[in-house]
């Protein structure tokens, strides 16, 4: 364990330096991992509760935050990577803030959001007790090549879980993974109640999904299902103890299905200790993670910051926010963390923006975004590729009214840094989408 102590010491030093310089969260983790490649196993393997990994294409950050809130509300001590830094080194960086040199985390559970590819790297270092698999959709195909490949990554992760796996019954890419879990590992389900099944297309892009191997809806006793009461209120049914009615602090159907997934997982983790009343209160009070529908107060008027990174996510975001049109900016970068190929913008329909138009497109590919909107008949008032200039102009021209920015990951990071400096927002880490 001398090596771990050395690694943690070096990592903490790197973290101190990096914070002073206002840098990101990956470097300290990188330093620690170099010195002790087995650091994750050494520190997480003997947690009294276990390790829950949350992965899938869309909703990882939001769902992880909800699950952590659920477990903490039940009195559990939880270590998590709260900054959306979902590569293994990001997890280690998060750990450095909380770990004494002895290498013992003061926690019952680790709840970790992991990128689909990094989830496997992580599992190779330390096997998760539980895995929550949210969904599979087109995302960063310049990294994952094919949807089938992403689905296979998740199946291999599920096979590593030692205690329980939680699957999306409505996503055939995910539901068919039930046949891949190890002997003796419990499968729990989450999904949309059959009475609300007409809302499913809003959550899934119209890609080609094969029905082979998809599960039939399991006995509802082991499924947490989303039952909508209206646009803002829902109940999570199942296990003979409904959670709700709940109204979240985040809008939209996607957030509700994330809450359903988090509830299913909390039930799987806590077993008989799960209390529906406690869960409902926790879900109703959890705030959205930064940039995921986060609302920033700009001189008394709300600016909504909405992360978009793939067709399904952008489609859901437009459906969620399109009903209340406000002055809108769209910022598209094509750095590695955004996905270098912007072809995916053509798998999204922007027709819902026709009425109000778009005030500004920005980012490295701001002109490509304007071009995309032209093909959907959406008026674009300005295009300014420079994000800082664009933000300045956008807030100036729309001062005194509500505003909204849809942005890719690195564009969000830059915009949020500017906004944080100007409006005293909380710090946040940076790593990957």
């Amino acid at each position: 364990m001398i090596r771990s102590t050395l690694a943690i010491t070096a990592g903490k030093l790197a973290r101190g330096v990096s914070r002073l310089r206002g840098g990101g969260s990956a470097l300290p983790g990188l330093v620690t991992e170099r010195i002790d490649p087995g650091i994750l196993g050494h520190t997480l393997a003997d947690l009294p509760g276990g390790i829950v990994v949350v992965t899938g294409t869309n909703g990882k950050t939001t769902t992880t935050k909800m699950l952590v809130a659920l477990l903490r509300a039940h009195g559990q001590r939880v270590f998590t990577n709260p900054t959306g830094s979902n590569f293994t080194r990001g997890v280690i960086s998060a750990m450095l803030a909380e770990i004494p040199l002895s290498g013992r985390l003061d926690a019952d559970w680790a709840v970790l959001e992991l990128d689909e590819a990094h989830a496997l790297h992580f599992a190779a270092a330390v096997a998760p007790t539980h895995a929550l698999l949210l969904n599979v959709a087109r995302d960063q195909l310049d990294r994952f090549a094919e949807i089938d490949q992403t689905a296979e990554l998740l199946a291999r992760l599920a096979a590593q879980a030692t205690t329980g796996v939680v699957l999306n019954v409505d996503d055939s890419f995910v539901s068919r993974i039930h046949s891949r879990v190890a002997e003796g590992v419990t499968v729990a389900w989450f999904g949309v109640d059959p009475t609300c099944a007409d809302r499913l297309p809003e959550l899934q892009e119209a890609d080609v999904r094969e029905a082979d191997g998809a599960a039939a809806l399991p006995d509802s006793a082991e499924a947490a299902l989303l039952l909508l009461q209206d646009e803002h209120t829902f109940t999570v049914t199942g296990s003979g103890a409904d959670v709700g009615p709940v109204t979240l602090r985040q809008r939209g159907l996607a957030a509700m299905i994330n809450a359903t997934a988090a509830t299913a997982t909390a039930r799987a983790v806590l077993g008989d200790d799960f209390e529906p009343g406690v869960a409902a209160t926790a879900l109703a009070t959890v705030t959205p993670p930064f940039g995921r529908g986060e609302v920033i107060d700009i001189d008394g008027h709300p600016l909504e910051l909405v992360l978009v990174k793939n067709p399904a996510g952008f489609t859901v975001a437009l459906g969620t926010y399109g009903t209340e049109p406000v002055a809108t900016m769209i910022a598209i970068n094509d750095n590695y963390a955004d996905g270098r190929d912007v072809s995916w913008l053509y798998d999204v329909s922007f027709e819902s923006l026709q009425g109000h138009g778009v005030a500004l497109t920005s980012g490295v590919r701001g002109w490509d975004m304007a071009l995309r909107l032209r093909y959907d008949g959406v008026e674009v008032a300005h295009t300014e590729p420079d994000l800082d200039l664009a933000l300045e102009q956008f807030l100036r021209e729309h001062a005194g009214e509500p505003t909204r920015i849809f942005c890719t990951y690195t564009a969000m990071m830059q915009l949020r840094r500017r906004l944080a400096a100007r409006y005293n927002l909380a710090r946040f880490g940076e790593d990957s989408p």
Partner: protein
Amino acid sequence: MSDPSQAGAVTASKGTIHLVHLYPREMSIYGDLGNTRALASRLRWHGYTPVVHDHHPGAPWPHEAHLLVGGGGQDSGQLRVQDDLATHADRLRALAADGLPMLMICGMYQLLGRAFITAEGHRLPGLGILDVTTTGNATRMIGPVVLQTPVGEIVGYENHSGSTVLGEGQEPFGQVRHGQGNNGSDGTEGARTGNVIGSYLHGPILPANPALADHLLEIAVVRATGAWDPEDVDDTIAHQAHDRQVRSLLSA
């Protein structure tokens, strides 16, 4: 498919043009649907009436076709369209020989070639419309691309594991100025025979390269109506997007 854009629309139609999109479900995971959108919109802007036929496996062949487009899919998608492609192989070869314009991207480009040889060495015959042979590779060729072609500079994005070699005398679609192209070694990208263009470029390729879109439309419209009578379309935004990519990639 409805396209609500009425920018530059002309009220009286100069003619009806039938676009056929091959396998939009199985072979369009990389945004290649954007090519169909772009062609339909531009036809409208030029004063013509587009009719888009989505051709799915097993469906009857559309009664009219002036231009064919196809895109990139997953390996599993290619398997699902193979039977239907075999059913229409003779028809497609005849249409190509007759000069019907076709734009086939990525997976569909490979299927129009002579053969695809899998990483395990299995030889899957293609339509043989383009004299190219593709071999499955462990490493993918991924990244932004700039080409020099007879229709000007083309920008796009490649993402393919197949490595393609042109047969002797087979014309490429363009020469690589940035990126990997057919195989990463001979500087060629895509293939062109008559009015059939095969290319690996997503982006999708047509919106940011309006000259290529109009080049294909001109051939299709002349076939359908006897003459190409375009309107003056404002492509400022497309040129901005195009030129910025060219500048940033060629200066890198």
